């Protein structure tokens, strides 16, 4: 392999890893909700869109950097998610219906309403990142003069990735070390058992939906410096989160992280070596293959390993 081919490969892997980290953060929120509620939240991308507009306006009006506004937007999205759960989804849970999945349909409706409200309030204009460092990067040749290959590492992408990792670790800590976190996991594993153990399932549902919304909200803030926003962008990210959730194994947090990273790296490799036009095809191929050959997702692989060894 000559140096040019090596440069392309390394640059592709870097891009894939950074993209995957962000994908994982979007996927985790949906996975959490999936685990506890047993429904796919199809308004996930729209929640991210709402968070992106918050971060955007916080910057434009108050000059708060998107990375700082994570601290404001994520709690707001937490409240927003809880409100959706309490006032919209809970009432539907209690209603007898022909379709057992009518909460899923409700989330589709919520997504549409959010997208259309955003069109009304913010117009359909594309808005780009307001930050100045959007295309700054670190270059290998600046640090190592004689380097045979040139690699670059985008500043905002890297910062976003690192923050995604920090948020993920914080989430893991919350889920495994705190009482509330353990209750959420208990609810996800077996609602009836959790109820019998005295877990307030209704409250866990509230917290979970809030947490899911907060996570995707944080992801939205991290996307502001590297992407752009418009009211209809939700669908694309809902789809990505959906694929990650299936790939990772419905409801598994670790699975979602691995699923996100896999999807990111897979997409980058496809883009370089097959063609970028194939990315959506590849995404669905993964989706279908995962459903057929790995119905439990990455999580089932992990579990099998643990039982076997």
């Amino acid at each position: 392999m000559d140096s040019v081919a090596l440069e392309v490969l390394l640059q592709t892997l870097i891009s894939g890893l950074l993209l995957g980290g962000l994908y994982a953060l979007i996927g985790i929120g949906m996975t959490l909700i999936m685990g506890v509620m047993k429904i796919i939240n199809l308004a996930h991308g729209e929640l991210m869109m709402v968070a992106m507009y918050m971060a955007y306006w916080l910057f434009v009006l108050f000059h708060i950097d998107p990375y700082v506004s994570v601290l404001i937007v994520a709690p707001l999205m937490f409240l927003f998610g809880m409100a959706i759960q309490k006032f919209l989804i809970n009432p539907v849970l209690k209603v007898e219906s022909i379709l057992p999945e009518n909460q899923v349909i409700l989330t589709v409706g919520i997504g549409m309403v959010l997208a259309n409200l955003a069109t009304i309030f913010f117009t359909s204009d594309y808005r780009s990142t307001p930050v100045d460092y959007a295309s700054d990067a670190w270059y290998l040749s600046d640090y190592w003069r004689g380097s045979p290959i040139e690699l670059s590492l985008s500043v905002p992408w890297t910062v976003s990735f690192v923050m995604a990792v920090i948020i993920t670790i914080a989430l893991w800590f919350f889920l495994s070390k705190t009482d509330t976190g353990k209750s959420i996991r208990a609810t996800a594993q077996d609602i009836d058992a959790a109820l019998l153990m005295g877990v307030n399932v209704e409250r866990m549902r509230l917290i979970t939906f809030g947490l899911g919304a907060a996570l995707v909200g944080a992801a939205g803030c991290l996307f502001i410096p590297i992407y752009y926003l418009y009211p209809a962008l939700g669908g694309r990210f809902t789809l990505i989160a959906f694929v990650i959730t299936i790939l990772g194994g419905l409801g598994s947090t670790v699975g979602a992280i691995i699923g996100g990273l896999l999807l990111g790296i897979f997409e980058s490799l496809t883009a370089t070596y097959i063609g970028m036009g194939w990315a959506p095809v590849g995404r669905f191929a993964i989706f279908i293959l995962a459903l057929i050959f790995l119905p439990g997702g990455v999580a089932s692989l992990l579990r099998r390993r643990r039982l076997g060894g």
Partner: protein
Amino acid sequence: MRQRWVVGVLAFFMVFVFAGFSLAADTVKFTIPLPLTGSKAKFGEIEKRSYEIAMEEINAKGGIKGKKVILEFEDSQGKPEISRAIAEKIIDVLKQPVIFGEYSSSCSKAIAAVAEERKVPYLVVTGAADNITQQNYKYVFRMNPSVSYYTSGLRSFLKEVVKPKTIAILYESSDFGTKGAEGMVKDAKKLGIKVVLKEKYESGAVDFKPILSKVKSKRPDVIYMVSYVMDAALLMRQIKELRIDAKLFAGGAAGFAIPEFIENAKDASEYVVTATLWSPQVSYPGAKEFAEKYKSRYGKYPSYHGAEAYSALYVIKDVLERAKSWTPEDIRVAMKKTNIVTAFGPIKFEDREGYQNQNFMDTLVLQVINGKHETIWPVKYATKHYVYPIPRWRDRR
């Protein structure tokens, strides 16, 4: 008593109905399909505003043959199946004898099929895919040059100034993108430029760096991109990030030619050239006035889509004034004989080079210089001298 009441109500309705008729007699109403929501809504909005400006001007000068023009807009959401349904409604229910409007190529194509089938003339305003006017349709006319001709100006700029040996082509996987890329491949062949890479991408993608590092490894002289606005900005930002030093970065109209491109790509947009059909400073009659009116009202200059929409209504006015009667057939005959100069440029429908009822016109090249789009080519329309060769990324600032 009761009877009087009934008579009263009847009389009321009669008045209402007659009022309606008399209103209808001195107005002419057009329904225009446009994407007003969804991801193409930005362009739908520009066009809607421009149509409205043209409508106000025409009405202020006495309308079309003394009839006041009323425009109504139907939202197609940028989806061909919805455009098709709107076109069917316009023809079958509203009985409108001529259709115009819609933004994207795929939607325009859907309407063209309906119009041809129902034998009602359709004026394509912005849809640029070549094959819309290559299907031997008799009732479909197009005022904007097709996408292969978008670049005729750029082609001569490449030939006379840049003289590249290799080119890489990136395009979005839509009708417009694919046709634009094919056009460039043909141009490159004519000019003896080797196409080292031709890759499509999914519009709205987050990360172009994998494909761009592949482009970088091929070291092309020119990178040519056919993209809508946000992809265009993201592409240039990531090109800057990877420090890909081509001799020229060129865009095929659409996303590169509108002011938002500069706002979004910021300093990464500097020196990028783009083919375009129109710019606010061109010397066609009414162009500057329209651009200024639009700007004073909405705060920024319209893109060429706006000029196309604005001029489309004037073309319709001209055609209807010349038509023997307002039946689809007579309107078609009159439209075929159109020969006027609008704010968008000269409009004349010709059958040549495999196209039918197609308008052929000079296209321009813009370059971003000091954060502003300047016309640089053809030299007779230039507002600034072009910057070439462009500095390497490392040496900028």
